[in-house]
């Protein structure tokens, strides 16, 4: 051991803490700032010295947001996100099972998996014009169901891609043992496989929910009235042009942030697994 080892360790430790402190500010300050701004009054917002805490917290921003129909848009977002999550998983769970666990030969399975994987990088903007014309022609423009239909393919592809790696990590013999015990494929799936993959399933479901909750492009083009507008559209519409009433858009933004941050904190362990495509255990 070198004599100066402990001194250099102290230096390293200080550097690490400095980096972490900066990372903490960089990550959380914008979120803190939107919440604080949502509680400020017009007068406080216009002050030349921005205060780090709302001096006299008021709910004006939230009151305006309620008047402007944001709760209805939040409800619409929940409907689209829940609908998309259910349909995507209903497609992806059997799909990924079929792809990985029934002995499909590689030369068939690989191109099918790649075709679905291609949807992960396919630009959403590329389907918007034809789908817009189709939706108008079919009379399903400006409807929540249409938003679900548009969101499902991309999210089902994501779910299938992640669940595929999850299935590949579950040992084949636990299923075979169940089959020998007299289970059918379906009861073996429900009794043995489903519990084994449940954490990953939760992760994928929450991620699909959040992706859809956040989705902006389809919502912007395929909704014009409050019955189909989602929260991101409502938020974008509250950005003040010349006046300084930023508490309104901040309040709408806070409404959108709450479930996302809560889900991240509560389900962190599961989400990391889904985000890294099953790499993190």
């Amino acid at each position: 051991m070198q004599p100066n080892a402990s001194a250099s360790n102290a230096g390293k430790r200080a550097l690490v803490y400095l980096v972490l402190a900066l990372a903490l500010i960089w990550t959380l300050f914008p979120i803190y700032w939107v919440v604080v701004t949502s509680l400020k009054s017009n007068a406080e917002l216009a002050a030349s010295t921005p205060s780090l805490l709302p001096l006299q917290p008021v709910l004006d921003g939230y009151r305006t947001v309620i008047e402007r129909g944001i709760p209805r848009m939040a409800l619409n977002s929940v409907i689209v996100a829940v609908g998309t999550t259910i349909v995507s998983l209903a497609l992806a769970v059997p799909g990924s099972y079929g792809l990985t666990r029934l002995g499909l030969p590689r030369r068939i399975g690989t191109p099918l998996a790649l075709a679905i994987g291609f949807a992960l990088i396919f630009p959403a903007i590329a389907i918007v014009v034809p789908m817009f014309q189709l939706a108008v022609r079919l009379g399903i423009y400006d409807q929540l169901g249409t938003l679900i239909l548009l969101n499902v393919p991309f999210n089902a592809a994501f779910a299938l891609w992640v669940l595929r790696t999850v299935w590949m990590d579950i040992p084949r013999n636990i299923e075979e043992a169940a089959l020998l015990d007299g289970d059918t494929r379906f009861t073996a799936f429900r009794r043995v496989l489903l519990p084994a993959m449940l954490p990953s399933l939760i992760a994928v479901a929450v991620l699909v929910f959040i992706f859809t909750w956040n989705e902006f492009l389809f919502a912007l083009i395929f909704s014009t009235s409050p019955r189909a507008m989602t929260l991101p559209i409502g938020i974008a519409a509250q950005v003040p042009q010349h006046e300084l009433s930023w508490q309104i858009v901040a309040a709408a933004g806070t409404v959108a942030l709450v479930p996302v941050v809560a889900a991240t904190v509560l389900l962190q362990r599961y989400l990391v697994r889904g985000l890294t495509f099953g790499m993190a255990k």
Partner: protein
Amino acid sequence: MSVRSLPLATNRPGRWQAVQHLWQIPEQRLALLLLLPSLLVVLLTMLYPLIVTIRMALSSERGQFVGLGNLTRLATTNIFLESMSFTLRFSAFVVIVSLLLGLGLALVVNSIYVPMKTLWITILIIPLMVSDIVSAVVWRLMYHPTIGILNYALSLVGLPRVDWLGKSSTAFFSVGIIEIWRSAPFFFIMLYAALQLIPPDVYESASVDGAGGVRAFFDMTLPYLRPVMTVALMLQFIGATRAFGIIVGATEGGPGRATWTISYFIYRYAFRAQQMHFASAAVLVLVLLTIVAGVLFFRFVWVQRDAA
């Protein structure tokens, strides 16, 4: 040898025959049936619009056939070329800075000096879950020329105010930083996960050799991280080239047309200027580039997965 393998190769049944053959085996028939709904939904969502887009791109706004007219007009439309250039420069800036930040944070959090790693991971991945529109709006508030906290901070140290999003010289970096805020956590979490998979004996043998610090990182850590890094880089680069909500939320393409991305160009021409056929030509270019990126991407992902 080649004489013998040649007839074998031609006798090899094609994919379609292979599928027909699979259909005879109950288990594999079930596999195809389970996969079919996802496959149909995903493929139709890409193929139907693609066919319509090709048809539209080849005709004028009034529906007359113009061949490659829209595409040649696109090639001479400055704002399209500028949008392309902005998109590529923007994406490159975003992924490079995000990679460096994410890698740095992954190494720091992974170090022995950091307690409560789970808590740090939870905090650091939060921006990944925040929508593009909310991120754009929050940063727009912080960038605000008169009431923004950033300009207030500058004024405290006696520097002049900056119109962060209002000048084309600063808008590029200002919008880039918003996207980096959302993108760096992805590199962090991917690389942190990859660091956990490095076998510890790699470092044990290194410390015996006396290698440490920077050299250990380049000799031992980096080779393990490289495949994950490549995947994350390509995914985030492709994601950044799609930037749309962040542009609408932060700058609406401005100042002037300084922050138009490809997606924003297509949106403006198709839905504001009502030139859907011209916009379709741009979609076609984007899809072709995506196919090229896809071929490159799955080369890497697939090689990595098979090797693992």
